[in-house]
């Protein structure tokens, strides 16, 4: 366990040192890459709450990622064109303020997670995987065929949204915001694991029948986990859309769901820092292999296959041993 803590501390230090070095060496692209990795890690921390703690294999987490993205896109596009979002009994304006956007993104994703959870948690196992995948496709096709917000072409934002007191256009400051969110999410996840809710959820993953026997409802525990998970992933979606100043249905695609899951698995399921390792590894590999060959996804596929077949427990498992860190 101490070995894993040391690794976690090193990782966290790396997330501060590498962009710091890039700032000193004047390499803004490295900062953008790091921002991308941190945002993906945040999305995967969200999934890790459902997958690692609750054992819910959700192949539809892109829904929440995309809803977060569209929350940002819709609010900011209304603000930049000075058209109200809703003009009837009262007037609802768009906004360019990040805190409001984050709140809306997390709330909307949490609501979506609650609705999807209500339906899909009626089932379990393979059915659950297929149903979350299908709901993901439903959101994807809806976004494509709904022309009001760009349809298939997506939505562009001219200027990155603002945060009071910071210049978000400066890459390192925006990186700081994303890193702060990641740290907050990791801290929250660590607290959640030790909370009564986390312990109950852990038990519900292992032996649902016994949890039921002591008077707790496993389905309800799963549902709460899914809602928290969706909110975190939704928040990361808003940040991702802000990073690119663009949101499109591809954020909702099932490949995105697969990638978020890949981050968690490569790093190590249920490890606190698994999503961070996975996302950093993935972004670095994508960047490096993308320079080597146009067909880098073949190599990615082979690496992924090797991790699944031979390296159970992910990269952290390789370094720290295969014990599942059930603390």
């Amino acid at each position, binding site marked *: 366990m101490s070995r894993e803590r040391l690794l976690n501390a090193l990782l966290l230090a790396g997330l501060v040192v590498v962009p710091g070095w890039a700032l000193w060496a004047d390499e803004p692209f490295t900062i953008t890459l790091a921002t991308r990795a941190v945002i993906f890690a945040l999305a995967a921390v969200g999934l890790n709450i459902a*997958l690692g703690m609750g054992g819910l*294999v959700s*192949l539809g987490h892109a829904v929440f990622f995309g809803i977060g993205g569209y929350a940002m896109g819709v609010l900011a596009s209304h603000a930049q064109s000075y058209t109200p979002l809703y003009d009837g009994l009262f007037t609802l304006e768009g906004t360019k303020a990040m805190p409001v956007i984050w709140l809306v993104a997390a709330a909307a994703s949490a609501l979506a997670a609650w609705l999807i959870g209500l*339906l*899909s948690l*009626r*089932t*379990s*196992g*393979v*059915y659950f*995987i*297929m*149903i979350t*995948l*299908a*709901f993901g*496709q*439903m959101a994807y*096709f*809806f976004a*494509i*065929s*709904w*022309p*009001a917000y760009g349809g298939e072409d997506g939505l562009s934002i001219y200027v990155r949204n603002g945060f009071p007191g910071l210049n978000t256009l400066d890459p390192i400051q925006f990186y700081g915001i994303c890193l702060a969110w990641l740290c907050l999410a990791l801290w929250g996840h660590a607290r959640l694991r030790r909370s009564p809710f986390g312990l109950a959820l852990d038990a519900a993953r292992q032996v649902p029948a016994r949890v039921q026997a002591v008077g707790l409802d496993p389905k309800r525990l799963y549902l709460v986990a899914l809602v928290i998970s969706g909110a975190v992933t939704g928040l990361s979606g808003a940040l991702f859309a802000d990073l690119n100043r663009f949101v499109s249905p591809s954020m909702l695609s*099932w490949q995105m769901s*697969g990638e978020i*899951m*890949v981050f968690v*698995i490569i790093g190590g*399921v249920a490890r606190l820092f698994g999503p961070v390792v996975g996302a950093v590894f993935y972004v670095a590999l994508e960047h490096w292999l993308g320079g080597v060959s146009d*067909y*880098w*996804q*073949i190599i*990615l*596929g*082979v690496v*992924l*296959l090797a*991790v*699944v*077949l031979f390296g*159970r427990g992910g990269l952290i498992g390789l370094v720290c041993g295969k014990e599942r860190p059930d603390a």
Partner: protein
Amino acid sequence: MTPILFAEQVLNGLQSGVMLFLMAAGLTLIFGVMGLINLAHGALFMVGAFAAASVAGATGSFLLALVAALAAAAGAGAMVELLVIRRLYDRDHLDQVLATFALILIFSEGTRWLFGSFPLYLDVPPWLGGTVLLPGGIEYPTYRLALIAVGLLVAAGLWWLNTCTRLGIRIRAGENDREMIAALGVDIGKLYTVVFALGAGLAGLAGALVGPIQSVQVGMGEPVLILAFVVIVIGGIGSIKGALVGGLLVGLTDTLGRLLLPALFRLFTDPASAASAGSAFASMAIYILMAAVLIWRPTGLYGARA
């Protein structure tokens, strides 16, 4: 909307339904016997379509192309089973999802590497070109009618295989109790490879058959795969009958939804917003159907086991 248009759309729905059945039957068979969730099934659909397109391009014979598609997909399936899938049977579903996701990446990029990013085209064979006049004055493309016939024939063939042959008995026995049939001397490893290759062949056949209707390109398999998942969830995992009923339901809901929902919205709003809202909701219709079936029967229409 004329009755003829409606009838044509019903036929279109049947046609896409039987093609979905070909995909879903393989998936449900593989899940039923081996307990494996196979995301790479769409990749085998793509392999079939590409094999058919290149053989048809080289020889000009559509029948040869179909045979090639079956052989290529079944061969790729058997190879993948021996190399990778075999190691996944006693893993949890998460590992299966990840490994087959990796296979999709490998297959898709490999195909892009071999054939390039541009779509290939597969022509309708001349002897199936043109239209036929159906009773009631409906003119319908011969090829699509042939697809419906082939799909129903395959369904009948699968039923025969499952109930009347030794392989079918083994498959059903494998679904029920794999230790027992292994103890009775059936080579379970070989049986699994055969079942996987059979499912893969069905997917490849579906890919080759729909090749002339849509373009043959990388990534064509995944939308179909997800629809096939919806079909299986509706029909019940492991049930071939469920796959047929679910496939037809999904095919009909999808085509008729696209036809009727915009018309329905036109009753309430102006034509422009009715068209956009109608198409947006039509693309969601099958998922709403799935949700409704789930509320009513969480294990699908014919799924006995949870």
